């Protein structure tokens, strides 16, 4: 019900921009575009969210890029951390000698 799908606005079908042609999943449909004003004003070629035959809002390419950049950084920070933990010598399971920790526990504990 609250599901909406992204579609590319191909063109407006009337001068008043009441209806527009969108392309989604390889098919073209006519949808109502009256809500695409103000911050959601949209030009052909841009993307909109379609809900029950109406363009609910514009999808901002800039904001999407921004979000993907943040997500990418979060993901890569995690990948780097994984790599770092993998390369850490002191955490090597094969290091049975415990060379780094070759001190008595009393010396380390506060």
């Amino acid at each position, binding site marked *: *019900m609250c599901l909406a799908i992204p579609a*590319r606005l191909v063109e407006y079908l009337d001068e008043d921009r009441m209806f527009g042609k969108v392309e989604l999943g390889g098919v073209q449909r006519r949808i109502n575009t009256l809500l695409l004003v*103000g911050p959601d004003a949209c030009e052909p070629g841009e993307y909109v969210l379609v*809900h029950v035959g109406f363009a609910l*809002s514009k999808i*901002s390419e800039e904001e*999407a890029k*921004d979000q993907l950049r943040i997500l990418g950084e979060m993901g890569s920070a995690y990948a780097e951390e994984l790599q770092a933990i993998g390369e850490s010598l002191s955490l090597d399971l094969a290091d049975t000698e415990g060379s780094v920790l070759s001190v008595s526990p009393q010396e380390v504990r506060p």
Partner: protein
Amino acid sequence: MKFADEFRDADLARALGARIAAESGDRHWKIMEVCGGHTHTIFKYGIEDLLPSNVELVHGPGCPVCVIPMGRLDDGIALARDPEVIFTCFGDLMRVPGANGSLLDAKAEGADVRMVYSPLDALKLAKENPDRKVVFYAIGFETTAPSTALTLLHARAQGVKNFFVFCNHVTIIPPMKAILDSPDLRLDGFLGPGHVSSVVGIRPYEFVTTTYNKPVVVVGFEPLDILQGVHMVMRQILEGRCEVENQYKRVVHDEGNPKSLEVLARVFSIRPHFEWRGLGFISQSALQLRDEFADHDAEKAFTVPGVRVADPKACQCGEVLKGVLKPWECKVFGTACTPETPIGTCMVSSEGACAAYYNFGRYSRSRDRERVLAGSAANGERG
């Protein structure tokens, strides 16, 4: 599909899940996703499998079909049985059981019930059948209500007098408040409904942060949106912040969509009371057509029974909608109540928590998860 696929990247989702796990510490987190669309994404993409066992997602009341009480559905079925009427509704509603069968049963018995994708389809039917009365059974939150409003304005402009709306539009804030006031549930924060917010903006949730001291993050509907939203709620709490944040900036403006708000105000007024399945009567929680649209108001143009019907005794949709019960904790889940023969609404709609658990096979995994949680809680008490 652009703006969908890139937000479904599996590696990135795993990385986010691991990050949430690393930052979640040893406390138990309970975060409610308000919208049924989120519930659907969470099960479809197995988000819970990516989250650590101490981060629990609680499914909220934001499923438009689920919250319709049986009496309102029976009113619809009564309208559908009128021989003059072509009754139209979204597909989700067709199988919802009323006191004496569903709309699908009524259709089998000869009622002219038609499934539509858009209210504009219903308007088109009205234009094509000037000798019949076409009733559109309108449901949905603020996401869908502007579509109904615009359709009515089109009907009026085109002089289509045989188009009627049976209005069951509801608003999201009152049930959120009811849940926050309920003593049954301890929540840490909310994932706010993305598409409702594209209409109303993010300001209406401020009371959750100021009055109830819970963070709200408005989130989108792709898997990475949900995971990022969970992480943002956690960061707020860990950093001692309590704000309304917008994760879904590519669609949601802080002020909402001014045109949608304008047409909502022009066509609808607030109902003094509306009954919600499981939540009971909530004041000022639903919309009705303004008097100037009385000619198109099915509640005024037809005689509707308006009888209040209690939910079936075995059905625990109310507890599921409030997030108090997990779907599989309901006595009839998966036995007497299945998507083919549902007893309650949560098993019917694709956004219902029960249907999501059932259809995506999350049942056994979720139970395993529950056992882990119960075990760690017991250990915690002993410690």
